[in-house]
């Protein structure tokens, strides 16, 4: 039998490369534009994988999916949202190896740095999972007013939020912001920068197996340069979280966002905080008449 591989040997040699696709409405479609670009290994510059280059229409489809999912997500109980975000942390832990492999291979992080990054992402998920049924008490208030009114303020989700990742791509910051957006019942359409596009696969698989309603989180890979303005222009996005370090782009987005009064939020120094969560809630104050 010399020269003939055994079945075991043959299957061991058979490596099936994963096709990295987009994540829209809980599904894994290819971009409608049919475009793809190669992602190279950070060290050797050899091919790592091909990723989709999402188009304007993919963004539109993602917003439509997010729009459809948002109401249902918002109406889930805070406790349930908390469980689901916690589950995301669990799934991320289970996929740690895939995340670190992708981070080291494509972004050139050392194994220690990659592990730290995953740790921070998981920590952020747990942080916001904990806040899901608590932030309302912290941010809401009963306001003293002079007059026969009971006056109180409560929070509501803003709707569909666009998230544009940093050019260099920081997994922990991205996941933290994602969690800060969805915890209060928003849906999100996120664009991973070119550098982070290979991370779409483990991220999408984490989300798809976390009991998260389809369409609450939608992930696009593609060219930030090509798509960032579309985020500003789209009237169905109610808020933008911009992690870009290019201040010119941020200014442009603020101008575009003014037309439908999108709130534009950009990162602070802190990795996670209640302040981040506040960027994606609206405050509603109710005056309720009371008798003397």
């Amino acid at each position, binding site marked *: 039998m010399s020269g003939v591989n055994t079945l075991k040997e043959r299957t061991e040699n058979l490596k099936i490369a994963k096709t990295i696709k987009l994540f829209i409405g809980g599904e894994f479609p290819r971009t409608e534009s049919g475009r793809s670009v190669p992602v190279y290994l950070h060290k050797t510059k050899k091919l790592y994988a091909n990723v989709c280059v999402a188009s304007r229409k993919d963004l*539109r489809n993602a917003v439509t999916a997010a729009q459809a999912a948002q109401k249902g997500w918002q109406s889930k109980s805070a406790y349930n949202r908390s469980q689901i975000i916690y589950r995301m942390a669990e799934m991320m832990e289970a996929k740690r190896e895939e995340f670190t492999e992708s981070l080291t291979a494509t972004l050139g992080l050392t194994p220690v740095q990659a592990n730290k990054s995953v740790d921070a992402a998981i920590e952020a998920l747990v942080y916001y999972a904990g806040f899901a049924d608590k932030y309302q008490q912290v941010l809401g208030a009963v306001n003293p007013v002079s007059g026969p009114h009971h006056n109180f303020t409560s929070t509501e989700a803003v709707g569909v939020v666009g998230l544009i990742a940093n050019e260099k791509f920081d997994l922990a910051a991205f996941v933290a912001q994602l969690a800060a957006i969805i915890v209060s019942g928003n849906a999100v359409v996120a664009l991973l920068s070119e550098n982070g596009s290979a991370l779409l696969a483990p991220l999408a698989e984490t989300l798809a197996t976390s009991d998260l309603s389809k369409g609450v989180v939608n992930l696009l890979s593609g060219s930030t340069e090509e798509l960032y303005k579309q985020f500003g222009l789209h*009237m*169905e996005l109610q808020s933008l979280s911009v992690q870009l370090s290019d201040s010119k782009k941020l200014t442009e987005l603020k101008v575009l966002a003014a037309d439908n009064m999108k709130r534009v939020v950009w990162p602070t120094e802190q990795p996670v905080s209640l302040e981040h969560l506040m960027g994606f809630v609206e405050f509603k104050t109710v005056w309720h008449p009371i008798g003397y």
Partner: protein
Amino acid sequence: MRTISLQKENGFPLAIQAVSVDEVGATERADFFTKRSVKKDSKLAALYLALSMCDLTTLEGSDTPGRVQQMCAKARFPVPPDMIEPHLQKRNLPPIPAVAAVCVYPSMVPVAVKALAGSGIGIASVATAFPSGQAPLEVKIEDTRFAVEKGATEIDMVINRGAFLSGRYQEVFDEIVEIKRACGDAHLKVILETGELGSYDRVRLASDIAIEAGADFIKTSTGKVTPAATLPVTLVMLQAIADHHRRTGKKVGMKPAGGIRTSKQAIQYLCMVKETLGTDWMTADLFRFGASALVNDLLKQIYKELTGRYYYDKVFSID
């Protein structure tokens, strides 16, 4: 080919050939229309046309005069004129058209008549025990008369599917004839409720019976049953209209209703009508969309063409 022998009102015999529909062919042909790409100016023209062909509809148990009034206001001005005027001027485009008609229950006809006075927008009313059609003929005729007396210019009747499915074609035919008489000058649209008919052969037969009985329009569905309008079902009905036109020279209209929510779908229907029946049918007199959600999507797409931005449909109206 099976022949269905019916008797006309005047006692003359009427033979309807039960045409067998090639299901695979119809599906393939209909699928072909989903692969078109209509862009830029042609798209804008199609969006305008589709908007002018809409029957803005509310047929809910919870309908109130206020809701109907609100819908009528939207029928006149689908988008507030001052909101879109600057964009139209930039491109030198005509104003956004009003919709073709509103479609309401008979009890709401007076409200619609008042709200639409002088606008030229049609008032369609469903009648004949909509949506089931399961009521005695006298009741159905009375229902129709009431709507017409109150000012409905179009009547959307449902056929008696119970009778049709048990082979009592004469009964179905006679009912349509009777209702047509009760309509007087009002246009009669005959709803086949294709979702309950079960096969394209039956859809075709029901279309032929309705057309022979005097329908001005044939309509796919009530909107209360799924599947409602689909491209292949509409194609089968359009073919029935085409064949009748070839035989007699008479033009019968078509109204797909239910399930058409996006501009993309609407444009697919328009392409199909154009290629099956020709340019003559590209008017609200002979083709309508029974829809309510479609209007906002058409406006969204019109705005997209004008401004390059994707719009939020709640900008136009909160229905």
